């Protein structure tokens, strides 16, 4: 009987010690591990100091096909547009939230990555995409090549996109208030682009794109209130008195939603206004 035991012991011993090899790990780093590498210039330094160090936000302006819709024709941005765009982002999006929500707010509800693209993304249905948000932490900004600080329309359009996308990130963390569901449900449609903004306003929606889904409605309302501003919102209501109740209810819900996040929405509005004035002066 013991013989079996010795035999088994020997076998186990053999297995444990038999094949000791000294594995040497390769010293050569894996190519591209930790991101692409290039010689930094002044622009890279600016982005590193203002976005990576304080908030760990990566600003990718150099072309990377895997960050965007890879089967679409897109182009990288012009280098001289990158800094103006990011300065605007800082003044009109980061600084207001930092001031009202505190330094930690943007660390808690964070955008981790900005990807800049020079052109718009053309869709099969003839519309173009100006910005997208993904997974609650990445924003792709299109049409960077058309940007100019002194062009107020262009600044408002781009910042509308950013506040729109950031609001997506907020509601991907804290859900949209239930009461929102009942307000404009009958108007949501996949073919929103057949409606003009004026027609949408008549239906109680702030823009045509707000008609696409409840989420878009919510974030369009937020970004319009912030970027186009309260005056614009009031003017839309004045032009469509029949929808006043809907618009005012949406406004209330937005203010309440931000309160839940610990932000005074009214103060945020005025800070954004200051930021836009600062940039476009």
């Amino acid at each position: 009987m013991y013989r079996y035991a010795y035999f088994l012991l020997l076998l186990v011993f053999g297995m444990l010690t038999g094949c000791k090899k000294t594995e040497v790990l390769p010293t050569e780093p894996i190519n591209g591990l930790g991101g692409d590498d290039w010689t930094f210039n002044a622009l890279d330094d600016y982005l590193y100091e203002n976005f990576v160090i304080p908030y760990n936000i990566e600003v990718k302006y150099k072309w990377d096909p895997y960050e965007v819709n890879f089967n679409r024709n897109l182009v990288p941005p012009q280098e001289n547009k990158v800094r103006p765009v990011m300065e605007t982002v800082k003044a009109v999006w980061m600084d207001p939230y930092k001031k009202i929500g505190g330094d930690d707010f943007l660390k808690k509800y964070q955008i981790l990555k900005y990807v800049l693209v020079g052109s718009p993304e053309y869709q099969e249905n003839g519309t173009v995409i100006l910005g997208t948000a993904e997974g609650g932490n990445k924003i792709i900004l299109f049409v960077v090549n058309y940007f100019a600080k002194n062009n107020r329309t262009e600044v408002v359009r781009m910042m509308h996109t950013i506040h729109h996308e950031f609001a997506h990130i907020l509601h991907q963390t804290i859900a949209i208030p239930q009461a929102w569901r009942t307000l404009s449900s009958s108007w949501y449609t996949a073919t929103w682009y057949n409606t003009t903004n004026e027609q949408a306003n008549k239906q109680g929606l702030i823009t045509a794109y707000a008609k696409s889904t409840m989420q878009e409605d919510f974030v369009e309302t937020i970004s319009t209130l912030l970027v186009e501003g309260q005056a614009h919102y009031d003017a839309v209501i004045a032009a469509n008195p029949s929808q006043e109740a809907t618009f005012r209810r949406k406004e209330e819900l937005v203010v309440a939603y931000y309160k839940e996040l610990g932000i005074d929405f009214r103060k945020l509005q005025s800070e954004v206004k200051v930021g836009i004035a600062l940039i476009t002066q």
Partner: protein
Amino acid sequence: MKYIYYYLVVLIMFIQSCQSNKDFDGLRPDERLNKQLATYYDQLASAENGWIAYLFPDAGGGYTFKFYFDRDNRIRMYADYDATTASVAKESSYRLRAAQIPSLYFDTYSYIHMLADPDPQISGGDAGKGRYSDFEFSIVSASADSIRMIGNLNKSELLLVRAKATQGENFIQQVYAFNQQKLADFDRFIYYYNKLTVGDHTFQFTLNRDLKTVSFRGTGAIDSITFFTEYATTANGIRFRTPLNVGGQQFDVMQDFNLNIAAGTGEFTLGTVHAKLNNQASVLTRQPQDATSMYMVKYQYFSATGFFMAGQTDVHKLQDIPGYAGIRFIPLRYVDGTDVFYLFYNNGQYYIGPAFKTQIDAQGIMRFTNFIGFDGNSSGTITQDIADRITAFTRSALDPEGFYVYRTGRTGYDLVSVKDSRVWLRFR
């Protein structure tokens, strides 16, 4: 006793199991990749006179660039699109990346991106697609003095050739001037037909500056070929996208042009072989099926200039019409088989043109007959001047003797008057 066998088995296992067979002693994949990228990087940056690049987008045409790569991921480039891009260098960045195949990325915007820009105002191509061009390229093959690449998205072709000391900063200006002056001469010959003689081979030759293509049609029994390819311009000639094969020889450049418009003759070097050109009135060769294919293949055709006549471009002076935006031939404009030529003016907003029926006979002659009348979208805006010009154009186009059709590229066709070979019309 029988346990001894077990011990034996274990013993054999000990001996056998630990034979480490070192069958790999090369470099690891990452090491090889890094080494390869470093080699390419060094090759690109080490060319002190830069690189001449020929780009062939998938939508057609050929473009010439001059690239200067440095060791800090920066690149300066010139392009032969227009006088400005040819003379003012634009700086941007580049990097080499380990994609599926080691790739060269032009990773911030420069001249090369304009062809790929999805905005049709910038690229002159389709909305959302541009000219189906690229700015990230897989390196397919490389020798000391040339690198061949394929676009990762649209499969456009890029060929880099190391520049010589004589091909300096103003090289692209020379290219642009060559295109504007020398190549334009091909549109100034009296007749449409060019007979090209290379040794004992003869071809009917066409150079289409609009699409940047050349076409060779063999005329003898030994040369029964039809060959067309895109070209890119060099400082003293053109370079073909795909080489021409004649009698076992391959030709990929045409240079040292010496054209005599008045005499209707020309000489140049095809590859390394001397070639002769004679402009002549009579047809050399024809392919009747070109007419049918033109009618069926595309929904509409565009002509920038209207009729050529005896070496004169735009003989009806259509380009003087305010906001002139080209002539379009739209086969099957209406369901009843009525076709139209539309002249676009006021920056393409308005159009006017004759409606007719197209007949193609067994000889491949295209005739525009059964004139129905003029069709337009804004009759109030038609001045007497526009009416006169479109009438003159219509008279030429609806010539009862019709046109021979020659294909000049993937999407290009020339219509040559049967009656008078000095009169022709170029469509793309």
